[in-house]
């Protein structure tokens, strides 16, 4: 099966969108541009405004400011029914009094999109086949399992061939094993449909595995937009650096002296970044980019707090000054808790530096705040 060509009408743009509830600001200054056929994830901790943003794209909530475009159409004040979108809810929102067949057929039977019954039947059956639901179409939602409900919700979204799919934490009610399975099914479906999909999750592994583009949000603002690789390798600020990765990037705060970054128990050479003597700078190192340094004068000196053996490697927590950092070290190393340990970056180019006060990355073009 060849991948369908993206249709320019399937693009989505949010322009400076904001939402207030009374005096409380839920989200503000949201600018996102989504290309047709992209899989885009809104990622962030709960309460960061990602669901509000999705609801505004769906038309379930009205933005307090800004514009929302689908294709070249301004849909800011358009009713949900007229946006030609499909949405999968966290709770699946299956209609309890309808069979699975009726649930999946429901979007095609509205007055707006009255579809001839033979076509309804054909589409329901083909969606059911794709999702492995053929044998249970006459059952009711309460009679099937969580994973099956999830598929029905997807089926209901698919039969419409909408311009955009919105998925609000669709996997969060499934158990771990099923979640991983549905994750790859979802990716497969996206590739087969070639549709624009906008996905909300707080689970970074879902975001990283599924997305072309990830929008990291916190406190109602966008922290960074980029491909999973960009976000991981080159976080725009300290929030993204700490948030992505399991565990997140280690951050060490220091002061620039003689072209080096120094702090309690560490000392790095600074690469070619704009920093002046006396600047407060934070260094970021991924746990897997640290290695043991047996020299007398290692880049980082610390005390081993705990060691978690993970089979292929060990996760070692090391106290450095007042902070605790983490490092993935070979499992063969026998490291007793309480021992002194020296660490250094295995590849200094992979280190990232941030302004301690603003949190901004020194590797990104500086934006004026706001």
């Amino acid at each position, binding site marked *: 099966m060849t991948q369908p060509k993206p249709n320019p009408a399937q693009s989505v743009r949010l322009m400076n969108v904001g939402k207030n509830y009374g005096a409380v600001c839920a989200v503000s200054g949201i600018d996102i541009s989504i290309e047709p056929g992209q899989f885009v994830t809104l990622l962030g901790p709960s309460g960061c405004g990602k669901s509000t943003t999705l609801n505004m794209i769906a*038309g379930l909530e009205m933005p307090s400011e800004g514009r929302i475009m689908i294709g070249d159409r301004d849909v800011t004040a358009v009713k949900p029914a007229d946006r030609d979108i499909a949405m999968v809810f966290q709770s699946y929102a299956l209609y*309890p009094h309808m069979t699975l067949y009726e649930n999946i057929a429901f979007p095609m039977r509205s007055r707006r999109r009255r579809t001839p019954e033979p076509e309804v039947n054909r589409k329901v059956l083909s969606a059911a086949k794709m999702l492995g639901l053929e044998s249970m179409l006459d059952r009711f939602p309460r009679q099937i399992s969580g994973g099956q409900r999830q598929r029905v919700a997807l089926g209901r979204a698919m039969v419409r061939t909408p311009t955009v799919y*919105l998925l609000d934490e669709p996997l969060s009610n499934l158990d771990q094993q099923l979640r991983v399975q549905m994750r790859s099914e979802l990716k497969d479906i996206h590739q087969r449909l070639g549709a624009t999909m906008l996905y909300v999750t707080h689970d970074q592994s879902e975001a990283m595995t599924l997305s072309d583009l990830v929008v990291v949000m916190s406190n109602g603002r966008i922290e960074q937009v980029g491909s999973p690789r960009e976000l991981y390798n080159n976080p725009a600020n300290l929030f993204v650096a700490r948030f992505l990765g399991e565990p997140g990037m280690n951050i060490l705060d220091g002061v620039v002296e003689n072209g080096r970054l120094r702090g309690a128990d560490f000392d790095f050479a600074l690469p070619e970044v704009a920093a002046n003597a006396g600047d407060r700078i934070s260094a970021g190192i991924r746990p897997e980019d640290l290695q043991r340094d047996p020299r007398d004068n290692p880049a980082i000196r610390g005390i081993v707090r705990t060691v978690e053996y993970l089979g292929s490697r060990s996760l070692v927590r090391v106290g450095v000054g007042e902070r605790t950092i983490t490092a993935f070290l070979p499992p063969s190393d026998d490291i007793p808790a309480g021992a002194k340990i020296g660490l250094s970056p295995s590849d200094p180019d992979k280190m990232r530096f941030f302004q301690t006060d603003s949190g901004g990355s020194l590797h990104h073009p500086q934006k004026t705040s706001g």
Partner: protein
Amino acid sequence: MKILSRTLLLLACLLAAIVALGPILWAVSTSFKSTNRIFAVPPEIVPQIPTTQHYSKLAAEGVQWAFLNSTGYAVLAVLIALILGSIAGYALTRYPVAGKPAILLVFLGAMAVPGFAVLLPTQMLATGLGLYNTWAILPIIYAGHILPFAVWVTRSHFATIPRELEQAAEIDGYSRAEAVWKIVLPGAKPALLAAATFGFLHCWNDYVTGSTMVDSPNLRTLQVALIFFQGFHGRDWGALMAGVVIATIPPVLIFLLFRKFLIGGFADGSIKG
């Protein structure tokens, strides 16, 4: 021991059932006995020579029109209360409404006011408005009696229907009104049926409101007509019991049909009234 207590329990239940249904069955039996057999000693449990003469007598007195009046009033009142009540109940769970706590208090307070206690001023107000002794007055008053209850029941049921179901329907291409009609109302069917049953019983079983708000014989409710009939034919027990039977069939039938919803609503506490 266990068998003994089980037997005792069954006997007690049988006795309870006889006490509950016995008088009603006795009335049914009486209504089919010819007048000269009614006082037979010892009493005939089953009429030896059944007759429908008492029912014919009621028909000759025009009681069937009162039956139709009662039915019409009750159906109209239930319809008004369910429509206005479910609309209000929906709005109270889904829309910002100015003064919501005060409005809820009004509905709750209205449920606590016994309709009978305000009958006198209601009669005077109805007279002042020219509604006394019209066909419209009883449906309006009955609807007012059962409305707070209908609002309360539908509201608490709508609150349990996730907002996301409607949102899903709106995204699926339906208007808000269509979403309510196709998703919310079918979901609230148990609550609506419970409210309708309770409301119908209230209206049909009323006597005091019917006897004080209308006067004309052609506007009378069945209950009022039976009391008038009793006034003229006080000792005609056969005909009176025939009246009891026809006045009992509709509410008991409705109760039996919808008891599941009514009992369910009361038992899980979603109905209090």
